[in-house]
């Protein structure tokens, strides 16, 4: 963290634990900034409900695997860290899969297909490698929660865009994921709309992601420009 530069550049140094959570939501978003986990992000987001389910399951895995790997960080040899971490992640995912199948079966019928895919989600291994091996347990848990929720909102947004354009609905079948109390979420945004097939097919996912990436860049640039104007400083992230 030893950036130096012009007088107007301020380096943000030393984080409060809570910042590990908030940074992962936007500034270090796993999907939009680190460009990790794009395979699940593109494959399952045919509806907002699917995106939400995949995101929540991934968040749970991230929090647990981050906590375990960070608590073992002193005994893990760098030479064997990858098979070791994958073994732990695969074990956590399989246990969650079995528990959900047994005790939250209705949720499992919606999410079941996606859960096994989380083992190969590079965001989980990526956070273990880049963060948990260097940080204590509490920041690792906060980072896992932030990364997971950051991943979730991106998935819900891509799923929502594709669902509205492709089927004219939003959060269809959300009650089978969240329970009957969430039936109000199921909206028909465009009644009688046939839907654009392209949005549901895989290219629709790439197009939606492209617009999201561009949108985030525009927002970030506007924010930076406003900061320079009002504070006369440019914040550089460590």
């Amino acid at each position, binding site marked *: 963290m030893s950036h130096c530069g012009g007088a107007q550049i301020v380096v943000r140094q030393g984080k409060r634990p809570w910042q590990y959570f908030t940074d992962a939501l936007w500034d270090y978003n796993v999907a939009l900034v680190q460009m990790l986990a794009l395979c699940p992000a593109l494959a399952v987001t045919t509806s907002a409900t699917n995106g939400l389910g995949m995101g929540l399951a991934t968040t749970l895995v991230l929090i647990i695997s981050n906590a375990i790997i960070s608590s073992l960080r002193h005994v893990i040899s760098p030479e064997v860290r990858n098979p070791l971490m994958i073994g732990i992640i695969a074990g956590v995912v399989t246990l969650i899969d079995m528990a959900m199948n047994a005790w939250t*079966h209705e949720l499992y019928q919606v999410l079941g297909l996606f859960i096994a895919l989380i083992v190969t989600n590079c965001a989980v291994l990526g956070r273990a490698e880049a963060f948990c091996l260097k940080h204590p347990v509490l920041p690792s848990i906060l980072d896992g929660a932030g990364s997971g929720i950051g991943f979730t909102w991106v998935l819900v947004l891509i799923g929502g865009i594709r669902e509205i354009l492709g089927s004219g609905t939003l959060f269809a079948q959300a009650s089978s994921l969240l329970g009957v109390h969430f039936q109000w979420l199921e909206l028909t945004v465009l009644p009688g709309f046939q839907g654009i097939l392209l949005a549901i*097919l895989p290219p629709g996912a790439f197009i939606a992601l492209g617009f999201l990436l561009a949108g985030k860049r525009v927002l970030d640039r506007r924010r930076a420009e406003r900061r320079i104007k009002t504070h006369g400083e440019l914040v550089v992230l460590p």
Partner: protein
Amino acid sequence: MNSEQTDLPVPPEREAEASRLARWRSRVAYQGLSLGLVCALVALALLLGDHFTRDAIASRQQEDQLATLRQVLPARLYDNDPLAEAFRLQDAELGEVEVYPARRGGELVAVALRVGTLGYGGPIVQLIALDNQGRILGVRVLSHKETPGLADKIEAAKSDWITRFAGLSLGNPPLAGWAVQKDGGQFDQFAGATITPRAVVKGILRALQLHARHAGKLAGQPEEVQP
């Protein structure tokens, strides 16, 4: 609140311990053992997980199958357990077909047939229930890999298309009518998707013909048949 949350400040006695640990970690034996130990622990956790969830999962799966069966076979028709009495029927054209017999007082009243056909994205597996006269009681798609949003209208949850087959039989409509409209038949295809409904209609027709070929044999099945 402490603003620095990394591992950096280490007291001297901890430092010696840390360097000893670092020496250990660079040894091949330590690496192999630690990897083996973690794998053994994960395997143990999975074994325990399996032990505690196995019964619950088995009964959930049983309930799932029963729920699908109820959709095609009205529960008032039978008093046996069709799932427990399931058997495989050898057929010259379709190979092995799984049959769930529904009996009332020991008499066969209907059968549910599990038939697979090839759709656009992969196999489409259907459960088709027929009464003794070969009339369709109900049809449901058990699994498919068709394009979501386009061809998944074959699911009962997405559209009522699949329910329109109830009451039909081999002579009603006549054989030429057992096709999608594009092929001169009487069943709707979906906008932009013909292959999927064509495969579903074909599967149902196959089940009807299979039932006709084996009607005598099915009715004559003894009550206790092992799979």
